[in-house]
């Protein structure tokens, strides 16, 4: 049995004898997955903090409060079904972000201004 201590609360087996692949039958039984976003305080954006399963939107907000804001970590919560999120693909990183890469003139440092020009 191969064990690692870094299972947080102590050594756990990490060898191939421990199964990791989900069974489709079990996967279909659970409530939908929601992603949770919390505004830490007024003046800040909502930030992604994790996910949870809930039967509907309202229960997702209640569960998010219990799981992610037990110590005043937030003043506002957003939840959204994970299935409703459209994300850019990491495979397309280069073509998607390339157009901004060669436009150095969008940055203020591109422009040379003598140091003695005031307030610039």
């Amino acid at each position, binding site marked *: 049995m191969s*064990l690692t201590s870094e299972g*947080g*609360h102590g050594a756990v087996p990490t060898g191939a004898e421990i199964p990791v692949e989900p*069974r489709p039958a079990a996967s*279909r039984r659970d409530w939908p997955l929601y*992603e949770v976003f919390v505004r830490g305080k007024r003046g800040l954006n909502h930030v992604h903090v994790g996910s949870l399963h809930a039967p509907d939107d309202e229960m997702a907000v209640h569960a998010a409060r219990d799981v992610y804001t037990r110590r005043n970590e937030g003043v506002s919560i957003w939840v959204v079904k994970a299935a409703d999120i459209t994300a850019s693909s*990491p495979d397309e990183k280069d073509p998607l972000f390339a157009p901004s890469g060669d436009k150095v003139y969008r940055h203020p440092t591109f422009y040379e201004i003598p140091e003695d020009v005031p307030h610039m």
Partner: protein
Amino acid sequence: MSAPTLERPAPDEAALQRQFDATIAADHRIEPRDWMPEGYRRTLIRQVAQHAHSEIIGMQPEGDWLLAAPSLRRKAILLAKVQDEAGHGMYLYSAAETLGADRADLTDKLIERKQKYSSIFNYPTLSYADVGVIGWLVDGAAICNQVPLCRSSYGPYARAMIRICKEESFHQRQGYELLMTMMRGTDEQRAMVQDSVDRWWWPSLMMFGPPDDDSPNSAQSMAWGIKRHSNDELRQRFVDMSVPQAEFLGVTLPDPDLTWDEQSGHWRFGAIDWDEFKRVISGHGPANDERIARRRAARDDNAWVTEAATAYARKHDGGRPAEEHAGSAA
């Protein structure tokens, strides 16, 4: 010039592997939708899922004292701590799901004993002093393990660990404060604390896992940035931290071989009973059956709540079936 095409070239696995290696080498984080080697993904699911299971099962030994805690103050503290353990389990299941695991399925694997949890939670809490000693020693050992995990190479795991570590500090301090209070009490209370330390000290040392020369997967985990320090290194750090704390408290650690080594600047300790560790982790500890039985009852006896909430949601959510959901993207 050829006609424009929407077809993307087939992914080149060697190039993806190089990109992955470069990300690890630069000490950057791997994120959920990045390509990752299958072994990396599987090792992380095993580790994160079993860590989550440890938090969830970890509610039980202390939960046993919720109704018997001696004052409203102590009950409120213990309840907050047990709730935190549930929260930690949830953060970690959330991280495991970003790797393609399914939460309900992981719970099934725990109940079917296919996946494990930390051996420490298979010991019973025989007296109220155990609540204090678990906070001091067991959570103290967990902190030693968990602080380096805040720099784990897998982003969602590292972020979950940062949240957990912030909360563990409360766990350890409430335990130590409880013990200091008991040590200021009667002889009987002091004897309870000593008895508890005698029972928990060695299992706490076992939490760090087998000695480095008997830990075959460690090297790969270190190379992947999943593991940051060796088992023996972390164990030594824990012993060095705990000895002066025991002295301050006025308890004796149950190890006649514990001696200060001037030359290395470390406390030397006696041999650990690895046979006991192997017995407990493979299912033959004092409380393994009870822990799993209670987790199974929680799943099965509460199934009607899950079903009722699902039925209610279906009725009020335009009939959208609750089962349709994709894996976590974040």
